């Protein structure tokens, strides 16, 4: 790929980027969020059209008008968010969109055979007859790769494949990648994890702000060097935590049991407590009940049994609205879907929780809301933009126009107003660049120092270790470890997260 330029309205995602991939190599594509990694690969995959630049594949100029063109010449891509039909079987997903050799009839039997062969040969075996929804994330990923291999891909683009895997799964996954490499397949590994680059890649290309910084053999760099290249500046230090007298228990969860959407027990007899001025981190591979735990705490899901008390008062099964009224703030993991209304301006998004209460709403007496107070709403927005450093064209700029970091600032601005007692935070820095993530972490610690109790659910183990005062590890709906500072050893937590190790908890 030579001189690739891709512009989106307002940004240049790729600015004159050259990229070269050799057969039989694993090539790391490293960069922060928004550095242009995915864009570049989506250009190669025909998903986007480059505004400028040329692409040669296997020595021939390639015309990539759509993914179909890319697939035809042997390029396969596995997206970060897997694109599988969950009510279909593995075979059906893999042959989806392909012409059947039998004309109108699908040829499931021979496809099944080929898929099992491919799987075995490359160490990617999955049961071809299984329905997708029955599979773990790791298995689904294998299906995606098999899908590309089934289409005779010689170039495999993997977009942050390990972000959804448990540490133990990563190992097996990497083994499979090495295996694929042996057969001459070229693999692009999009990532922002340095250890992975060091671990598995042969060469690495670093992108920063849409520009290519360098391509080097991995053996010639180390993590320190890569981090420098990637960020281009020193990594800012963590916010210092002040000592807080974390004595008073604010949130107490006792013997909580919660069912998930499928009616399966997602939270099993969980008991936790959080004190004022304390950050309780919850570690775990996603899908181990953290989501249900959080939703139940903020009143979005009803528990099957158990109790949740806030400052001694029962909030179990109360409505979200009344729980918010008790001083509970919630920063949901999915900013776009649950955290904001994309088509609302910053101003309107900031009043999502108190739009019918003073000061943003005028009232008759203390209770009956009448009209929104435009002046208050506008000035609140201006204040939040200034206080939280939201980069936007103005107070009425639509939330959808904000970048991930600025959107998270907006959500935090809303949730942190009114000095909440308990703040439930889920994946606060997912998808944010280093600087934005750092800012978000500093805000969380600030709230802790102020005396708020914080329940922090996070898949980023490094982040949890850095900010938590105590750490709970969840596995299959249970708390399998409860760690105090000094006990935070990532390898050990990793073992707990994957169910290998379990602590005996004192009652």
């Amino acid at each position: 790929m030579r001189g690739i330029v891709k512009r989106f309205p307002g940004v240049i995602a790729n600015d004159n980027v050259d990229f070269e991939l050799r057969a039989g190599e694993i090539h790391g594509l490293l960069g922060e969020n928004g550095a242009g990694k995915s864009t570049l690969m989506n250009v190669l995959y025909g998903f986007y059209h480059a505004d400028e630049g040329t692409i040669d594949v296997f020595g021939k100029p390639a015309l990539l008008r759509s993914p179909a063109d890319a697939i035809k010449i042997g390029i396969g891509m596995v997206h970060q968010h897997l694109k599988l039909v969950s009510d279909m079987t593995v075979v059906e997903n893999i042959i989806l969109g392909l012409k059947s050799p039998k004309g109108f009839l699908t040829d499931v039997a021979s496809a099944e055979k080929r898929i099992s062969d491919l799987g075995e040969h490359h160490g990617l075996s999955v049961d071809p007859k299984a329905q997708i929804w029955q599979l773990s994330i790791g298995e689904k990923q294998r299906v995606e790769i098999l899908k590309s291999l089934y289409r005779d891909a010689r170039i495999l683009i993997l977009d942050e494949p390990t972000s959804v895997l448990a540490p133990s799964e990563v190992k097996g996954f990497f083994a499979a990648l090495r295996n694929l490499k042996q057969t001459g397949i070229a693999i692009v590994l999009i990532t922002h994890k340095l250890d992975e680059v060091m671990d598995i890649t042969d060469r690495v290309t670093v992108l920063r702000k849409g520009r290519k910084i360098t391509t080097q053999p991995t053996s010639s760099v180390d993590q320190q060097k890569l981090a420098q290249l990637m960020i281009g500046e020193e990594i800012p230090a963590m916010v210092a935590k002040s000592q807080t007298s974390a004595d008073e228990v604010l949130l107490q969860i006792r013997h909580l049991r919660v069912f998930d959407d499928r009616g399966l027990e997602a939270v099993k007899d969980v008991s936790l407590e959080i004190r004022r001025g304390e950050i309780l981190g919850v570690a775990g591979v996603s899908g181990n009940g953290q989501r249900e735990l959080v939703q139940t705490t903020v009143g979005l899901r009803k528990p099957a049994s158990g109790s949740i008390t806030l400052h001694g008062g029962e909030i179990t099964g109360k409505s979200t609205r009344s729980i918010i009224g008790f001083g509970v703030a919630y920063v949901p993991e999915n900013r776009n879907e649950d955290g904001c209304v994309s088509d609302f301006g910053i101003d309107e998004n900031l009043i999502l929780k108190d739009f019918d209460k003073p000061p943003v709403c005028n009232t008759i007496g203390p209770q009956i809301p009448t009209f929104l107070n435009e002046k208050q709403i506008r000035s609140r927005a201006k204040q939040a933009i200034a206080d939280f450093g939201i980069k936007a064209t103005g107070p009425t700029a639509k939330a959808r126009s904000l970048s991930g970091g600025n959107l998270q600032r907006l959500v935090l601005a809303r949730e942190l107003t009114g000095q909440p007692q308990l703040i439930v935070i889920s994946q606060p820095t997912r998808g944010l660049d280093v600087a934005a993530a750092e800012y978000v972490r500093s805000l969380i610690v600030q709230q802790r120092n102020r005396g708020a109790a914080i329940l922090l659910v996070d898949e980023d183990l490094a982040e949890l270790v850095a900010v938590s005062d105590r750490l709970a590890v969840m596995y299959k709906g249970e708390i399998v470890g409860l760690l105090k500072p000094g006990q935070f050893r990532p390898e050990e937590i990793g073992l707990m997260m994957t169910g290998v190790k379990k602590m005996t908890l004192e009652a």
Partner: protein
Amino acid sequence: MARLKITPKLEITRRALLTVTLIAYVASPLVVLAVLAAAGKSPIIALDALYRGTIGTVPGFAESIVQATPLMLLAIGLVIAFRAKVWNIGAEGQQVFGAIVVTWFVLPFLKDPWPSYVMIPIALLLSFIGGGLFAAIPAIMRSKLGINEVITTIMMNYVAIDALNWLVRGPFQDKSIPGSYPESPIFPQQYSLPIILSHSNVTIGIIISVVSCVLVYYLLFRTPLGYSIRAVGLNPSAAKTSGISVNRVVNSAMILSGGLAGLGGGVYILGITHELLPEQASGIGYTAVVVSLLGNVHPLGVIFASIFFGALISGMSSVERALQIPQTLSLLSQGIIIVLILIIQVFARYELKRA
């Protein structure tokens, strides 16, 4: 070489929307002429008739306003529902039910009713309540049982229409003349909406309609209820996460929407027909869906779209008379115009850029 490329816009600007809508409005008469020319009719005569039936003459203008009046009320009601992403297709049934409730109120007081300023407000209020209650049924079916409101509101239309047809042949039928038509007795003068344009049927109904649009504007953009309606419509999941009761909002939007449709039915029967007729179910509830979309689901847009549609209906009937063409040909033109307008509106979402 400068090439032009069509790219989607990040944000649809108000200006783009207005421009495009204006183009649609201007282009549609041309479509009518094209259709008629294709059918071998003189476009010159058609153009003249269209002009006289809309803005060219006082009667034509009056008829346009008369046609626009109930349409506006139905469409503005739908704006509330559509803003909450509640797909109320039941304006037809709701306006019919509003008119039925009005008739039910009027019939016992046929002789010596109280004066207009007492009876009309009561009748209109009842039509609003009737439409609201009628819409409450599908609203509750959706919020309590999760039944899709598109299906239930459409089915409720048939309930209302069949009830109407039964009532005008049964309990409500004018029995004073033996073997009479399926219609209720004619309402006494006290129930007629005051006329505001002499020698026409333009009543205070148009004022009620426009004021309703303005009120709905304030409701949607200046009150907490309107805010929650828009929030639920744009992102129910975020609304729920922030403690908004989605079901309550959906119910409110649906009931208000039905209420305004009911009021539209009330204004129609008290302003135009002065009796309950099977023709109360004229399909206006479906036209209102188009009008509300044509008005960009915005109160001010709905005012213009309703008047435009009223003019279209009035103008086309003038063309029908002038050219002696069947109504189907004018309905065909209307259909083409609607499709054309919806296509043109898509362009607001794109812009031309140098590639």
